[in-house]
């Protein structure tokens, strides 16, 4: 025996625990996949127009814009905060883009303005929440009125039209065959956000903050700064969504994207992100976005009015959360 064998090899501490297959099958994401597949199958039986490549491509427009915001919102909610002003940011960014287009700013300038305004609004939220230590739910109810209010002051009951022709690409263009620019961007953003949340120390810190901000602070995590960055990110994504929506619609009214904030939050919660913070995954959010798109589009093909679709979304939200709780309770009672 050589001497080298006696030195103990350093024990490798795994970065994350291996999940047994069983827990993967019963995970939230698996439940969402099952729901998505079920809706997909029902849809293809219900309407002959559903299973068409171009139909499916159109379907993606139902969730890409909100989904982009939902990615950032997921991080924010995991950290224990919330942003109700995202739709108002879209309205303000779109209005200012419209203003710029009136005076002849070209496409690159418009995109910069849209994204810049989004980022600025997000930073404003972040400053109020982290700088002054205010509860985010109230702050963003306030800025929601403020941002959309400014859009109303600028536009009143008017609308901006006349965007440059090249501006239409972002909301209406296709990258490759049936893959729209919006879908490609959503896919790309989803991968980036997945990587940031699940594979970087920054993502790990977000979970730490959401689980226990005080403990995170004492562990050397700069809680305020990370939350500020997350608010900026949410604003940035809202700015990007504003560019896409404005480009897709080709016009701006101050009431644009009204009510999106609640749909985005529904998407995030449906995706398994805990509204109390500290838990969630990007895969879940992407699946939830897909489910909401499927439900909206499928029922739309059946001529079900939008308002009735919202019942399905609402029921889905409560049932998907209630069922595991009931399941758990039922199972526990049987064991006891």
């Amino acid at each position: 025996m050589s001497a080298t064998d006696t030195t103990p090899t350093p024990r490798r501490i795994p970065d994350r625990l291996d999940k047994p297959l069983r827990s993967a099958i019963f995970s939230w994401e698996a439940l969402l996949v099952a729901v998505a597949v079920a809706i997909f199958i029902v849809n293809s039986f219900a309407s002959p127009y559903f299973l068409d490549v171009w139909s499916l491509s159109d379907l993606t427009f139902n969730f890409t814009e909100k989904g982009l915001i939902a990615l950032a919102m997921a991080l924010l909610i995991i950290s224990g905060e919330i942003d109700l002003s995202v739709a108002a940011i879209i309205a303000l960014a779109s209005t200012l883009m419209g203003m710029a287009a009136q005076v002849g700013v070209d496409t690159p300038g418009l995109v910069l303005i849209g994204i810049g305004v989004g980022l600025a609004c997000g930073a404003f939220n972040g400053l109020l929440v982290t700088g002054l230590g205010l509860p985010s739910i109230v702050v963003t109810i306030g800025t929601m009125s403020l941002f959309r209010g400014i859009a109303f002051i600028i536009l009143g009951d008017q609308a901006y039209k006349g965007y440059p022709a090249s501006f239409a690409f972002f909301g209406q263009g296709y990258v490759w065959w049936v893959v729209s620019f919006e879908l490609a961007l959503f896919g790309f953003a989803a991968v980036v956000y997945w990587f940031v949340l699940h594979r970087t120390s920054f993502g790990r810190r977000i979970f730490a903050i959401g689980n226990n901000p005080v403990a995170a602070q004492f562990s050397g995590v700069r809680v305020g700064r990370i939350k500020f960055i997350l608010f900026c990110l949410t604003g940035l994504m809202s700015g990007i969504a504003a560019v896409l929506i404005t480009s897709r619609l080709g016009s701006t009214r101050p009431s644009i994207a009204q009510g999106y904030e609640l749909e985005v939050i529904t998407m995030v919660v449906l995706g398994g992100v805990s509204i109390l913070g500290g838990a969630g995954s990007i895969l879940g959010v992407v699946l939830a976005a897909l489910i909401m798109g499927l439900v909206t589009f499928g029922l739309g093909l059946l001529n079900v009015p939008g308002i009735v679709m919202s019942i399905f979304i609402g029921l889905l939200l409560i049932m998907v959360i209630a069922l595991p709780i009931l399941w758990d309770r039922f199972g526990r009672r049987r064991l006891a």
Partner: protein
Amino acid sequence: MKTLLKHREIWLLAAIAALVALISVRFPGFARPGNLATVFNDTSILMILALGQMVVILTRSIDLSMASNLAFTGMVVAMINAAFPAFPIPLLMLVAIGVGLLLGALNGLLVWKLGIPSIVVSLGTLTIYRGATFLISGGAWVNADQMSPAFVGLQRLQLLGVPVLSWIAIVVIVLFFILLTRTSVGRSFYAIGVNPTASVYAGIDVGRTKFLAFCISGAVAGLCGYLWISRYVIASVEVANGYELNIIAACVIGGISIAGGIGSVAGAVLGALFLGIISTALPVINVSPFWQMAISGSAILLAVVLNARGERKQGRIILRKAEAA
């Protein structure tokens, strides 16, 4: 005097007085008692709703479904009235309160029995209740000519020179005052907001108390369903769309802490009045009504900043459930 100045309601009252004075400079008639009574009457519904929301917020919960509940209940009573014009109105108001109560109880049950966070529950029921409004009406409106004169006229009757709508608001304010300051249930709303864990040890059933709070906010929303429809004389799916956030705004301006446990009847009433004065005053002083949203947004932010100074508490996180369930 010093203790009096510590109350945020006094400051809010001063702010409202200053606001009225400022408006009077531009439009002298605004501060006339008769006009102020009109503003009170116009704000009645928002005040009642804000009181209901306050009880829920006190228990560290939130009810986003109030406006949808209002729309649904309003549609129900409007359809009953259109189908049976002879149905007595006081009874119809009880129906409205009952239907609202049921919808509120559904929220409360999901929060109590399943332990789902209230923001998620009411976010779901917000869309469900409004969708249900569409289902029962088929998207059709109930118009003024389908409503009976008594249905529309009741709240406009004058009693001692004050419209019935204002009287209803006054009665509701008094009832809430008694509930929150003179009953043990009212105490327990505050208790579970301040410290849910301690409340459990004090023998308060946290879940059941939250359930009660949701029943109250539901019943209030139902009552306002009737009041809203008979005031604006049209019942449609779009009634009070997005109004839930106005209600919360009134509470926030009124100094009700979203973290629970802090708030008063006077605060909720004054917060609603503040928003009501702004919306009535803008057209009078020739400011475009499009300014209203931005102004109330700024007012909310200002109120939050000022309130936060009064309630600095470290390590307290909103939305987090700390009670031993």
